[in-house]
């Protein structure tokens, strides 16, 4: 080629031209999409209700010391199995502790277990699923067979076995629940990655000279986040139940620290004399699980690509 066209080429593409006066805007911003997602989410009353309840429960857990009327572990001989009253609206338990205060503080164990265990499951499951789905071959085979083996064991049984192995404590219960939920995230991530990796824009990204890790991070990961987010929200609900179950079995939160599951465990001995000991923690678990499920379902609908414009 002649030098003439070489110059014309340079001018037309403008490599040599200084980037003059272009405002330095962030390269990645999402005008419209986030707002549109929020609009779709808000259109679902049940999702909004779920989000509000989740928000209130989290506030309650965070500000427990300021909200709770009593110390959750302080015993009061005058309030042993005390019926609900003005002083103790939710009644008292078998050693006279205020049930309302224990419910409020118990939210920390339940929500904490839900969030921490799912965070653990996602942080393990996402990279492994990404690796399995994108690398393929024997790596995929090894990870997938391990996942199959883990999925063959019922979630709660596995969590109980792990918690028993690790020893009874709230932290160990969180680890046990998180590990038990990991296989779901590996499998979901792998399936999503394989679907997205078959898209033509991934091929185009390869033809553009992107290295594999960059394709995985920039082109595949953001496209699978919605599915992971929905699954995570729904798994939090399951994890809350799992924490309650482990605590009920004495494998989770240890007395005298409150947890909704542990409260149910003691309450079962006093179902006739003091039913309020069981009703309030039971209702709390129900409400928290319902709220996360409603929110998760709404999230799934709002993120559904078929409903995008």
């Amino acid at each position: 080629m002649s030098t003439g066209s070489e110059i014309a080429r340079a001018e037309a593409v403008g490599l040599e031209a200084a980037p003059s006066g272009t405002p330095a805007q962030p390269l990645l911003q999402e005008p419209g999409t986030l707002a549109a997602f929020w609009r779709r989410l808000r259109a679902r009353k049940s999702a909004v209700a779920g989000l509000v309840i989740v928000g209130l429960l989290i506030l309650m857990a965070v500000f427990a010391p300021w909200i709770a009327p009593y110390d959750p572990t302080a015993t009061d001989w005058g309030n042993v199995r005390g019926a609900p009253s003005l002083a103790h609206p939710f009644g008292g338990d078998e050693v006279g502790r205020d049930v309302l205060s224990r419910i409020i503080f118990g939210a920390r164990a339940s929500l904490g277990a839900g969030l921490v265990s799912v965070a653990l499951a996602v942080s393990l499951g996402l990279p492994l699923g990404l690796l399995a789905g994108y690398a393929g071959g024997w790596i995929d085979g090894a990870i997938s067979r391990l996942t199959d083996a883990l999925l063959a064991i019922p979630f709660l049984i596995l969590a109980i076995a792990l918690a028993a192995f690790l020893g009874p404590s709230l932290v160990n219960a969180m680890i046990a629940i998180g590990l038990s939920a990991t296989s779901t995230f590996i499998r979901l991530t792998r399936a999503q990655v394989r679907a997205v990796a078959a898209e033509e824009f991934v091929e185009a990204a390869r033809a553009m000279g992107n290295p594999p890790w960059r394709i995985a991070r920039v082109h595949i990961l953001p496209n699978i986040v919605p599915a992971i987010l929905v699954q995570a929200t729904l798994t939090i609900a399951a994890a809350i139940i799992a924490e309650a179950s482990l605590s009920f079995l004495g494998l989770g939160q240890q007395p005298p620290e409150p947890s909704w599951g542990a409260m149910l465990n003691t309450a079962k001995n006093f179902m006739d004399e003091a039913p309020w000991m069981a009703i309030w923690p039971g209702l709390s678990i129900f409400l928290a699980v319902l709220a996360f499920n409603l929110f998760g379902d709404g999230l799934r609908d709002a993120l559904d690509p078929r409903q995008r414009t």
Partner: protein
Amino acid sequence: MTKPLLDVRDLAVALDTDGGAVHAVNGVSYTLHEGETLGIVGESGSGKSVHVLAMLGLIPRPPGRITGGQVLFEGRDLLGLKERELRKIRGGAIGFVFQDPMSSLNPGMTVAAQIVEPLRIHLGLDARAARARAKELLDLVRIPNAAARLDQYPHEFSGGQRQRVMIAIGLSCRPKLLIADEATTALDVTVQAEIVALVQELKRELGMAIIWITHDLGVVAGISDTVQVMYAGRILERGPVDDIFSDPRNAYTLGLLRSLPDLSGGRAGRRRLHQIEGAPPDMRHLPPGDPFAPRNAYATPRCRSEMPPLAQAPGAAPGHLVAAWYDLPELLSREAAR
């Protein structure tokens, strides 16, 4: 003649399937010079896409397998390069434009982020410079109000505009060679014409070589300097565009040209469209001779047993190569006399 930009020598690609190896590309050789536009035509399965993807290591291996040949790009054999070195060439010295602009752009990334990608990977531009360049590229591909559209998502662009964005990405690092794989196939006819016009203008401005892969002879006629007809993973004919259209020497090329509607009007134009009888061969068990022979009314016994070499067509323009044992012009004139 100067040294060619791209020199493909006897490239062969096979794809392993459960039913045996599919011989997708069977000894393809050609050269492409700087600034030249090569149109490659052929039907599905002719190997036209697979061979360019194979050149750049873009066919998945397995099942894909390069069974032979060399691909010299600026004197370096691409087939011998490591993946890391190939990545520097992909999107850098060789730009790509894919078939479907609807699915070739990442729906979750802004147009700016996607144009900027090769600039940052290959040229190492910082965010600000890359963004400025992205705007210039959108201007270059004639997208109006480019600055405002940088932060939009692909779904906010029309099909033709998305293909313009794809072309901008393909051209972003000033490639020596732009490969367009069925780049206008997914677009409707008026938009196709716009894209073809755009590519012609860009070629005048930037002077890159182009390989334009398509099954649309009309697009090829409008864009190419040289046309190459592929069938069953082989080149059957190749030559200057006007010569191929006016003086086809291979029966397959003739069949393709006759299957085009003639819109020139008048009585002569109102003829039944020709169709090529039969179906493409099973690529797992290719016939020993000319792969088109079983469908070819002009085939000689030798065609069925021995593959004709690609050689200068006698009496045709220089550089007009054909793989045929028969002399098509002579057969046609004899036919006309009868």
